[in-house]
């Protein structure tokens, strides 16, 4: 039998544990370590006898830029597994032709990159996000000095990669989100046509409602990230109504987030997202349906909706959930009609070194041959315009065309603005769909945007 007087001991133990838990959560101030920068990063890896001039002539279209066999390039990137294999496949012709030795490291941890750079021992080359261009602008070698084939890149790509008047990053990989998934079988059965303008899309949606179908499946539940599906959709609407420059202005803070253009996009979105005639379950359905379930609803039997706006991964999700369905006939996508630019994620190559081997890498990846290899490997899209004609995968061919015809490329607004804007944006979307006043919701997000971009 337990004496009740002993229980406070247990309680005090619990309290101490609670105190510890509360006290945690403090982040130690990052202390930059001023290590003197060594002139060269000596990574000893004698895998190949050095200083042997390539005996065979370089393969067609590959310029070694004076790199000698055995020259090393240290690389740091986030890719691993199949992604890493893709990259190796793409770089193999260069490695074979010039005898360059790649010394790659794979990590998802940006802190590792930051530490290396601050310690004065950055990798020769890193593949990272666009925000790092600005972060490391003082240390990166301009592409013009590295033998880049600039003509292969659309002006907007060069503009994104330019900081302080210098082109510092080479976009190597892109994935686009400005697409809508649908079922060609269902479209055929009901006589619907893929729309090519926003007006046609709007008319198609109204026709579906008139026919008694629910056009959209807009579910966006995603735990504490609920709202991101909506933010993608709204950004696409802005790209239709206002264009890529407007989105860039929002990112830089030139246009406030409670601007009339933003409000218009939200209202266009809300007309569909809050009404059970237009989307599965109306506002409640949009808020409480998981984003994956929202994809499945369009391709399930019976289908609950006709259209779902979602990034490229939706194809993989459908394939996994419904293995019998075929891409192209049972599920397919089209670009958001009327979008003046596309949004998506992109990976950038940044050079901390201008040694010959690095120049060879830059020249190769930006060349026609490099673009063709990238397209052949099917490692998402290559921003290199010469890749467009070289894709072999059906979905990539179509995405490549959408990208090629775009007049701009915008990153996700919420991901790009720092300081909690992403969460504030989601909150605005969730609150708006849940019936809150739009002006108040946007004003709250605009406040965070102003703080972050001041």
């Amino acid at each position, binding site marked *: 039998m337990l004496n009740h007087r002993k229980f406070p001991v247990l309680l005090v133990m619990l309290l101490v544990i609670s105190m510890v838990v509360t*006290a945690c*959560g403090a982040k130690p101030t990052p202390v930059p370590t001023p290590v003197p920068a060594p002139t060269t990063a000596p990574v000893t890896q004698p895998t190949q006898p050095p200083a042997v001039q390539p005996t065979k002539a370089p393969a067609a279209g590959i310029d070694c830029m004076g790199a000698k066999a055995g020259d090393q390039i240290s690389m740091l990137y986030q890719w691993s597994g199949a992604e890493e294999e893709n990259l190796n496949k793409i770089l193999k012709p260069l490695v074979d032709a010039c005898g360059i030795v790649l010394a790659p490291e794979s990590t998802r941890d940006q802190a590792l990159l930051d530490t290396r750079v601050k310690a004065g021992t950055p990798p020769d080359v890193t593949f990272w996000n666009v925000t790092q261009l600005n972060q490391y602008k003082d240390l990166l070698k301009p592409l013009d000095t590295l033998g880049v084939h600039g003509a292969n890149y659309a002006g907007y790509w060069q503009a994104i990669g330019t900081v302080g008047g210098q082109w510092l990053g080479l976009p190597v990989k892109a994935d686009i989100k400005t697409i809508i998934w649908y079922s060609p079988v269902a479209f055929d059965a009901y006589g619907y046509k893929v729309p090519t303008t926003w007006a046609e899309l709007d008319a198609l949606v109204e026709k579906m409602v008139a026919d008694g179908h629910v056009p959209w499946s807009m579910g966006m539940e995603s735990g504490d990230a609920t709202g991101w599906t909506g933010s993608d959709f709204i950004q696409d609407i802005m790209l239709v109504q206002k264009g890529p420059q407007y989105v860039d202005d929002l990112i830089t803070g030139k246009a406030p987030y409670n601007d009339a253009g933003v409000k218009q996009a939200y209202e266009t979105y809300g007309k569909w997202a809050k009404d059970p005639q237009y989307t599965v379950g109306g506002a409640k359905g949009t*808020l409480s349906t998981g984003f994956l379930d929202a994809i499945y609803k369009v391709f399930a039997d019976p289908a609950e909706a006709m259209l779902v706006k979602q990034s490229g991964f939706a194809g993989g999700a459908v394939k996994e959930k419904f293995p019998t369905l075929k891409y192209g006939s049972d599920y397919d996508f089209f670009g958001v009609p009327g979008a003046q630019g596309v949004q998506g994620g992109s990976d950038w190559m940044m050079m901390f070194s201008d040694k010959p081997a690095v120049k060879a890498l830059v020249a190769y990846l930006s060349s026609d041959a490099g673009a063709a290899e990238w397209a052949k490997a099917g490692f998402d899209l290559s921003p290199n315009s010469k890749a467009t004609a070289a894709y072999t995968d059906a979905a990539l061919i179509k995405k490549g065309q959408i990208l090629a015809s775009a007049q701009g490329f915008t990153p996700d607004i919420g991901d790009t603005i720092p300081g909690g804007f992403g969460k504030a944006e989601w909150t605005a979307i969730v609150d708006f769909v849940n019936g809150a006043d739009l002006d108040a919701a946007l004003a709250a997000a605009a406040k965070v945007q102003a703080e972050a971009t001041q």
Partner: protein
Amino acid sequence: MSSRDDKVPKIMKQGRVAPWLYVAPALIVMSFFIVYPMVSTVLLSFRNADSTLPATAACIAGEPCWGIFENYRYALTSPIMLTAFRNNLLWILLMVSGTVAMGLLIAVLADRVRYERFAKAIIFLPMAISFVGAGVIWKFMYDYGSGKIQIGLLNAILKTVGVSAVSWLTQPGINNLALILVGIWMWTGFSMTILAAALRGVPTEIVEAARVDGATEWHVFWRIIVPVIMPTIAVVITTMVINVLKIFDIVYVMTGGNYGTEVIANRMYVEMYNSFQSGRATAIAVVLILVIIPAMIYNIRRFQEQEAIR
């Protein structure tokens, strides 16, 4: 006296240093894992988002500014934090009273049945489940199917009786209650166990004497049992208040603080790990500690009083 002192070997005498040696291990652990993080947290709360400048740097011209206390202005006056304070208050009122009342009720009733152990085990079981796991389980309970099929238990029941489905987690007014119910389900076992032990400690003589004197069971409960176990009830209440102030898992898993269900601890997490606003996050942490300290002092006082009685 002096002769007795001489007989004690010198090594056994307690000097000024010896006590410190005994407590040193505990002090070192405490200072590393409690004092240092706490001091660091307080210092960071006066810095800006990435701790590089004083908090004053976050002020925007033309807007109210509390100078070095800028992060506290956010922690105490921003609309989302006011929502969080309101919700935490609601959680305290409903969840503390709910767990204590249910715990006491079950403890008293289970005492009188043959399958007592089984009943108590069932009630205690949720405590053994990971909080995140429980959140996921209840997310399914509350699931709102936008299509024709309702896989959520509650909505399936509503559908069978012909009432239209409710979106439990997104509807303001209902969603906070739905979350608090999960909290009560999880923590009732805790208060039940402690209260049940306290009930066992009630001297049978007084209870029997009261019954002999003709007191009804109702009177015995309210006039004898409750006053006797009152100190334990008080401890359970304060412990629950502290727990509820720090409530995080349920909200994080089930709504992510959306739809007006934000609570202090979740906001702290969001500021720290989603928004990278370490100044604001630590300011919220300090506010949370300050709110909890009175409950903690009360609890420790109780504990010391009971030690004194012993």
